């Protein structure tokens, strides 16, 4: 990993190789953010490209008041949400979240879940069925090790909402798994 300040100053100095390095360093974060909001796989690459173009254009305004990853995640989240809005698809509301929770609890579970890998895949599929807000919070916390504060900054959600979403999502998944494991044992 290259030091953030060095990398940013090299990109600002016009070093193309440094920008390639920056993209490689943060493409996993960006594709996760975009992937959690945009369902169509074919649109994701283009949106990710737009995110990095925006990063390049605005890098001079980055003042190191947060981590570079948080700043890039903010841009990625906004870009993805704006894309979904431009396609006239509503960004899920709290009421919608509750409907999704209900659907998730009623969804059928696979017949055999003794294999750990099957169970992991099943959990990941359930995560994918959650609303973008839940998925984004889970991804940033569990995969990118961001704090509540950083997730709040990236998504524009209050810290309390971030905590609540994390708790509710994990609780929902736990209940679903518990029910499935119980069924297997019986």
């Amino acid at each position, binding site marked *: 990993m290259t030091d953030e300040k060095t990398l940013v100053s090299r990109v600002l100095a*016009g070093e*193309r190789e440094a*920008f*390639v*390095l920056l*993209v*490689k360093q943060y*493409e996993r974060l960006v*594709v*996760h953010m*975009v*992937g*959690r909001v945009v369902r169509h*796989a074919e649109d*994701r*690459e283009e949106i*990710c*490209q737009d995110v*990095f*173009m925006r990063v*390049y254009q605005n890098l001079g305004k980055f003042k190191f008041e947060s981590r570079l990853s948080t700043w890039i995640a903010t841009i990625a989240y906004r870009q993805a949400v704006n894309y979904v809005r431009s396609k006239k698809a509503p960004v899920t509301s709290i009421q919608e979240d509750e409907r999704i929770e209900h659907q998730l609890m009623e969804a059928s579970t696979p017949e055999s879940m003794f294999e*750990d890998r099957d*169970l*992991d895949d099943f*959990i*990941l599929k359930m*995560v*994918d069925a959650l609303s973008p807000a839940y998925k984004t919070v*889970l*991804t940033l916390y*569990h*995969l990118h090790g961001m704090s509540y504060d950083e997730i709040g900054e990236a998504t524009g959600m209050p810290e309390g909402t971030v905590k609540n979403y994390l*708790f509710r999502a*994990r*609780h929902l*998944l*736990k*209940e679903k*798994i*518990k029910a499935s*494991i*119980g069924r297997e044992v019986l």
Partner: protein
Amino acid sequence: MMEHFDEELQKAVESGQMPVGPEEDITAYQHVFRALAKDPGYALPPGFAEKVAASLPQKGQEHSKLVWIGYAAGLVFMTVAAIFTGLMTGLKLHLGFFKEISSYTGLVIVAAVLIAAVQWLDHKLVTERIRGGSGG
């Protein structure tokens, strides 16, 4: 109450402590935390970073900004020089010149249209071809 207990259970499982609570809840949470640490499988094609870098504005295009600044500076300099020369030589502007060319209105219009057409053709046929050639 139940929610608080569940929250504490989540914290204990996450930090790897020995949680106290129903076995099935602990096992289910352990599965959930392990799965959440796995990559969801979204991926960008190989060479994505290079592709994005290649779509950045070319150095020549960045340079063209400097060229425009140069043009503007030249224009300002020429205007100042003209005013200064006018003041030094005691030049007085009068409408005689415009009266002269008013009898050739048609010719002036044709000349203006021709100049505009040449500029447009130059932009369309030459400049864009040069840009296209250097871009890729």
